[in-house]
């Protein structure tokens, strides 16, 4: 079985599909037209709403935009994490899924460009309160603020901040790009040389990703309340992305399966394992969230409790109470029975639920800074995540259109095709 596809430069490249693949995994080409026909108008409409909102209510726009942006970036970084960890663990069963994650990481490139409005928000003083604070005349500050300003002034100095951000994006962009390129090159070349290369580079990628994602979370999300701090915040950010990307991956796989692809390639056996990992990270999220809340509650120090006190005002309070219930308890019990983990219907529902709750979590982290009395749900709060998640999906589809749906010449193909989940 042999066909032709195009690589990124548009030249046709011969692809040799190994015999015995249970499904056709050729690039989708023009096939996802219907999906695009739905997706592109929605994203365009949401983008239009964002532009309108920018004119009408810039402050609201920047906060909603940041919320949507972090939602999408988190998912793309989570996908990068899964791509890398697949190589670190030398995994076999997840080879087919890896291509989905690789395609999700294609969103990183557009997200670099989409970061510019966030920067404009910061430097127009409409987003992060530290911007105003570090430019205050020191003689107007009292007591502890003097010391605080000294530290924040150094840390948020413009060149330092911009260099840091550039470094984060460079790490993510380069690792995602390299991993994708080697993977799709292996579709053509086969062999083990590229596998070895990916195995060699992946561990350093995980380490750097962990560090850069942490500091991105510190610089952009945690510092919305600049006098607040939590050493675990980076881990909290990781877990969100890890959960969000798993849910996105499940939804993409299910959509492909529904359209008739990958029926026998990524089966319920694979999805069962993904569901187990979703379950594990549901519990892990609760552990991290509880650790942060619990230690701050127990310590009861004003500079730390301000984070939770802000989220006790008005309607934020019930939202704070519901967060662990909706984001931990409900998915925990939905994912507990084995039958749910093996049911496509349940998985579609659970993955959607987790994705929506991931947005809920980020909304709860970001928006109280703007509306600290109570919740003011704005149309931009819907438009921003829809637009940004649309960008993630469009980037993923872009990849699906151009490259085989699974790494067809991967060294571990035997372990992923016809994979059986071992459970006693």
């Amino acid at each position: 079985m042999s066909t032709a596809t195009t690589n990124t430069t548009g030249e046709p490249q011969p692809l040799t599909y190994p015999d015995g693949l249970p499904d056709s995994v050729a690039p989708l080409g023009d096939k996802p037209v219907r999906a695009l026909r739905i997706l592109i108008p929605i994203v365009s409409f949401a983008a239009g709403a964002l532009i309108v909102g920018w004119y009408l209510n810039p402050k609201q726009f920047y906060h909603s935009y940041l919320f949507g942006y972090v939602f999408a970036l988190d998912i793309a970084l989570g996908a990068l994490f899964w791509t890398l960890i697949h190589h670190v663990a030398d995994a076999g069963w997840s080879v087919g899924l890896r291509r989905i994650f690789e395609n999700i990481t294609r969103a990183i490139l557009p997200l670099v460009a989409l970061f510019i409005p966030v920067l404009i928000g910061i430097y127009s003083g409409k987003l992060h309160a530290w911007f105003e604070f570090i430019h205050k005349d020191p003689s107007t500050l009292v007591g502890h603020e003097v010391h605080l300003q000294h530290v924040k002034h150094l840390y948020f100095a413009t060149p330092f901040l911009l260099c840091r951000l550039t470094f984060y994006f460079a790490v993510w962009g380069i690792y995602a790009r390299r991993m994708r390129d080697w993977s799709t090159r292996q579709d053509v070349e086969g062999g083990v040389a590229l596998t070895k290369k990916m195995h060699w580079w992946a561990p350093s990628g995980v380490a750097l990703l962990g560090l850069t994602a942490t500091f991105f979370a510190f610089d952009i999300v945690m510092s919305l309340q600049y006098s607040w701090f939590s050493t675990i915040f980076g881990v909290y950010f990781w877990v969100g992305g890890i959960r969000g990307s798993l849910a996105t991956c499940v939804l993409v796989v299910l959509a492909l399966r529904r359209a008739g692809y990958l029926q026998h390639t990524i089966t319920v056996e694979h999805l069962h394992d993904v569901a187990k990992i979703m379950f594990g990270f549901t519990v892990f999220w609760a552990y991290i969230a509880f650790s942060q809340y619990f230690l701050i509650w127990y310590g009861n120090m004003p500079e730390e409790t301000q984070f939770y006190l802000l989220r006790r005002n008005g309607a934020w309070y019930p939202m704070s109470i519901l967060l662990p219930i909706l984001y931990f308890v409900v998915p925990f019990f939905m994912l507990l029975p084995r039958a749910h983990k093996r049911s496509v219907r349940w998985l579609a529902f659970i993955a959607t639920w987790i994705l929506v709750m991931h947005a809920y979590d980020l909304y709860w982290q970001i928006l109280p800074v703007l509306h600290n009395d109570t919740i003011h749900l704005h149309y931009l709060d819907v438009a921003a995540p829809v637009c940004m998640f649309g960008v993630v999906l469009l980037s993923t589809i872009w990849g699906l259109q151009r490259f085989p749906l699974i790494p067809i010449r991967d060294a571990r193909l035997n372990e992923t095709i016809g994979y059986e989940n071992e459970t006693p």
Partner: protein
Amino acid sequence: MTATTHTADTHASHGPKFPDPLPRIPLVWGPATYDSLSEQISEITEKPQPYWWWPAFLISAALMTGGVTAATYLISTGVGVWGSNNPVNWAFDITNFVFWIGIGHAGTLISAILFLFRQKWRTSINRFSEAMTIFAVICAGIYPGIHVGRFWYAWFMFPLPNANHIFQNFRSALLWDLFAVSTYFTISLIFWYIGLIPDLGTLRDRAKSRTRQLIFGFLSLGWRGSTRHWRHYEVAYLMLAGLSTPLVLSVHSVVSFDFATSLIPGWHTTIFPPYFVAGAIFGGFAMVLQCMIPARAVYKLDNVVTIKHIDVMCKFILATGTLVGYAYCMELFTAWFSGNPYEWQTFKDRAFTGDYTWAYWTMMTCNLFIPQVFWFRWCRQTPWFVLIVVTFVNVGMWYERFVIIVQSLSHDFLPGSWGQFYPSWVDWLQMIGDFGLFFTLTLLFIRALPMIAIAEVKGVLPMANPHGHPVADDKYLKGLDGEYPTADHAMAAEYGAPAHAVTEVPPSPTPVPAFIPTPGGNGKPWGAVAEFANGTLLLAAAKATVAAGYKNVDAWTPFYVHGMKEAIGRTRSRLPLFTLAGGLTGLTAAVCMQFYLMAYYYPTIVGGKEYRSWEAFTPIFFEMMILFSGIFTLLSLIGLCGLPQFFHPLDSHPTFNRSTQGGFFLTIEAKDPRFNPDTARAFLESLGGKHVAVVEA
């Protein structure tokens, strides 16, 4: 979207369909069989120990005696004999406590978390690490007992009221510690014991002396490898792995709460729970390697605990060491970034200007910098070098706790109360004594019990894979181009190709009669039994027997053969329901106990926490839930399997004792409506069974 019922059975053809340029390296190297493996591991406990064992044991025991002396002196005199002072109220005692609790974590990680992630290389090292977990928790458990000074009041730690009807403060990290550590010890012991049961059966069946037969017969509860038992056993093991995984995270998190719930600069920081867990796994892996590398060399276990095992464990040390380094950096960064002057002065003192900078940089060097050598393959695969590095890690992890505890206390809010800590000779003796206790227990364990999980390793042998396609010996581990794809492949290939599946039943030492009488039997038949050469043949035979209409069929195997429970017509075990019931019971008990005692029976306010502050009760909710789940799992396993069963009619069969070593047996019981002694025997023979006989009930 349609719910799909598609399973992999649609693609029934197994084995490599696609070119395999990077073959998986087997976990056991060389031509090991079920019998050779049983012999290799069991022999260590059966033969006299090598000469070095006695001096090693005597030295450890002498050190342990030193620890007993130190504890006795402390109890008879008072905690003043330690160097702990004001402001450094906690020093060596809690440092050692946290150190040993941490050591235990690698065992649980290997036995539970890696099990859930199906990392099968764990089978070679899990038994040893689990044993270490138990011994380490014993070492740690000494300190809460003796550090109270008045040892006879140690029962104050337990949830019992004192003379004034005042209960313990359930909002205190110290009480959480008690629940967490005792739950951890209990669950680890259950997990270890359940894992040991099949191997204890192996030791019983190999035993030459009556005493060994009785001891291991009693301990193994009469395990004979019945598939009806395996199906509960496998689920029980999974349940315990599922329980132990959050438990291991919770234990060191609770230990970290001892510090993090306080307001001491350097202690109160939100990353403490995962940071402590990562550190514990890091230190635990180092200790596993510290003990395993010499044991592996002395007992010539390098085909089971291969260089690749050491390699992977070094990678874990690198990963967790880097995570711990991440936490160090987060602490240091946040101390500065927070703009909190108290926090920053503590960290400045710790890292740059104070009396304990040497300890801080020892910790940084040993835990963050030195393990980075494991980025290089040679460093991971050279046992003597690994041994040196893990020694540094163990030292570093001890210093980590020392730095956190002693430095933070010595340099708190008030400059007027700053002070240094100087350990006394009792401190030193107690600490060294703990190592003595640990190594004494480890040496006794090596002497008495199989240090490698025999049944589990059998399950990962290449010959155990019923769908395996053995490659020709000259192509073994080679890629498509006929070369070894990596140096690791070449290294594994040096041990030789794996043994091919056994296809002939080994002859019986004594002739097998057609009807085997049982001592004290009632003359009626119990059932018919046949031996098969390997699991694949047995699986086919079991399916054929069930297809022929027999219902009371059982298969007896040295390890759980995948698909066997369905072959004998059984379904998935219902044991998880008992686990769930246990969890709900424990949770309910914890909820009632804490709310009742703290908010109604004798309401107290401590530390400004409300009467009904659920947050502070959460650790004990969790621990009691896990404790009860684990105990229910053990009891339901024993109950569902109908154990203990010290005698069985099949014991009279001359080769049946191989069912725990390398033999595969199929039985049809007399209570089956279709059972007839002669036709059953003839039927089993027609399936290719050997040593066929009817056994008296």
